[in-house]
């Protein structure tokens, strides 16, 4: 057993003992400790850029979606001038949510408690008993819904940030934007989100899901061992799932804590692999990828047309995606609910210009593989980890994040720090490196090195 401090307070000195990204060790404490969670709520979720939604979900004035930033309920609303606002979904009178629908179109948001009424920009418009009760002295301009001070959009993805010292979204994304383009900017018109969402409640720490999307290609073969077996056709050779481990690919990390868990550097490999041989839907999607390859190359260049496809990724801290994995792409967000629980929301995302037939095939692919058969075992893992590390001894264990230590570097073709294979824990080390910086700094954590 590794020696561990056993500290459970959230002071910078204690945290630095719990996370050692250079040695590749992380203590169980950071997944279960209440004081660490409280500090995350303040220093990670109130500072970083958080995913709010996709533009295609709110096309018209008054269209809104409900989401969370950390544990705070947020309304994301399309404004009259076409911009997007984020509003804290809490009435300024007593704090009740002024909107309890998940999405829709509204001209006003009326608090069901006493009737304070706000417009789509969050301005307080009317208050019962304004004359007789408040003698007309209530300054409505001071009592609007609290806005998310910064909302910015990157190619359809809407992000919000509470920290005025944070850099712009584009600067925050850094090298990650180049990789996100492979999901968001493949074809003319960009992407759209498919209606309907997966929302699951997991009794585990939010970082377990985030770090897995950030970098865990290692789990795929064991955790999802039951999936390729189920696909196998007795008349055809079983797809060699283990090939994934050896497939020629790379991993990307950014200093900002974002990463792509693994991407092939030759899409042709991907096109030949997997379940293509016996799923009609995957065949339809792969044919679409072949046909659209030239357009992707024209827009993004040959490097990005050849790869980096087939990837899980994470924008720090909690925006996750799967790009072109087994015939489909999805985006998601991990909402924390205390140290021991999170909600995992996900949507299908498709190229807007794809045909109806291709989009339908993509949705069916999502249902069967990533959000059907594979998810079930991920949920099992996260819950099981949380159960076992609650123990006073287990939480003191330093867990091993040392896979593929010290092999990263610059790459001629790919921006950021790159690991020369598909499977390492480099992304997780960078995720926790950045997490530690947020957790131990007094204000927005500047990056002073490269």
């Amino acid at each position: 057993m590794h020696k561990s401090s056993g500290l459970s307070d959230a002071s910078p000195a204690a945290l630095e003992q719990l996370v050692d990204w250079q040695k590749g060790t992380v203590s169980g404490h950071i997944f279960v400790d209440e004081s660490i969670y409280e500090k995350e709520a303040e220093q990670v979720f109130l500072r970083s850029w958080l995913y709010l939604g996709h533009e295609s979900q709110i096309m018209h004035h008054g269209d809104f979606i409900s989401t969370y930033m950390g544990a705070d309920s947020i309304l994301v609303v399309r404004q009259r001038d076409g911009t997007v606002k984020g509003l804290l979904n809490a009435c300024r009178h007593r704090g009740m949510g002024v909107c309890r629908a998940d999405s829709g179109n509204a001209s006003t948001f009326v608090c069901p408690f006493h009737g304070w009424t706000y417009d789509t920009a969050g301005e307080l418009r009317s208050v019962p008993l304004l004359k007789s009760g408040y003698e007309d002295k209530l300054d409505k301009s001071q009592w609007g819904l609290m806005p998310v001070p910064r909302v910015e959009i990157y190619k359809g993805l809407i992000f919000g940030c509470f920290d005025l010292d944070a850099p712009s979204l584009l600067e925050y994304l850094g090298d990650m934007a180049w990789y996100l383009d492979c999901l968001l900017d493949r074809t003319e018109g960009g992407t759209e989100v498919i209606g309907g969402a997966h929302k699951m409640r997991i009794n585990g720490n939010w970082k377990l899901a985030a770090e897995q999307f950030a970098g865990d290609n290692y789990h795929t073969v064991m955790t999802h061992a039951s999936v390729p077996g189920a696909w196998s056709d007795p008349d055809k050779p079983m797809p060699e799932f283990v090939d994934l481990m050896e497939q020629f690919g790379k991993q990307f990390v950014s200093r900002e804590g974002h990463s792509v868990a693994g991407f092939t550097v030759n899409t042709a490999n991907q096109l030949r692999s997997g379940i293509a041989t016996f799923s009609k839907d995957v065949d339809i999607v792969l044919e679409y990828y072949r046909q659209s390859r030239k357009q992707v190359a024209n827009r993004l260049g040959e490097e990005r047309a050849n790869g980096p496809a087939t990837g899980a990724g994470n924008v720090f801290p909690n925006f996750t995606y799967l790009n072109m994995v087994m015939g489909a792409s999805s985006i998601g967000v991990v909402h924390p609910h205390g140290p021991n629980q999170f909600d995992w929301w996900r949507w299908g995302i498709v190229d807007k210009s794809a045909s109806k037939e291709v989009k339908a095939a993509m949705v069916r692919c999502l249902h069967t593989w990533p959000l059907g058969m594979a998810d079930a075992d991920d949920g099992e893992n996260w819950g099981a980890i949380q159960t076992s590390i609650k123990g006073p001894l287990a939480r003191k264990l330093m867990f091993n994040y040392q896979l593929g230590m010290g092999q990263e570097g610059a790459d001629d073709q790919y921006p950021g720090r790159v690991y020369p294979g598909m499977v390492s824990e480099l992304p997780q080390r960078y995720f926790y490196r950045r997490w530690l910086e947020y957790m131990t700094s007094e204000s927005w954590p500047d990056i002073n090195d490269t």
Partner: protein
Amino acid sequence: MFRSKILQPDPVLQIGIEQYYYHEAELLDNHEYSRWFDLFATDTHYWMPSQANRLFRDRGTEASVEGEFGLFDDTKTTLGWRVKQLNSMTHWAENPRSRTRHLISNVRIKTILEDDEYEVWSNFICYRNRLQDEVDIWAGERQDLLCADAEQGWLIKKRKIILDQNVVLSKNLSVFF
């Protein structure tokens, strides 16, 4: 004479369909997934929409529609994949096995179509107890299209499952409904 707007089914038909559902529930609770799989027609569609909260004026649009994102959207082929997964020893979500109890009630024969097809709705509660002390309870409605079958009695040509949850309150849906 009193005439009900509600279809008054032949009691033999009603009992036959109820017994069929009890048999189906028994197969699931006994983890006899391959036998359960045989109850579905080759062109079946097994579909569970996701649920959302809507504004009052949008009521009726809470469930996602076919073609959108749901929680299950299976053909006979992909349902077969799930069955094979459940029958394998490496599906960790169900290894060790969960203890489940499917309770089927409120069986309503809604319409009798030509070609011996029946639209039958029923309610369910599924209780899952897992590992030491984990409990999940799912309640909802199944909207089935059944067709008479000489061998099985009935085949499920279509099943739409309304799960009465917005955020799915379990770590997965590694059971069938």
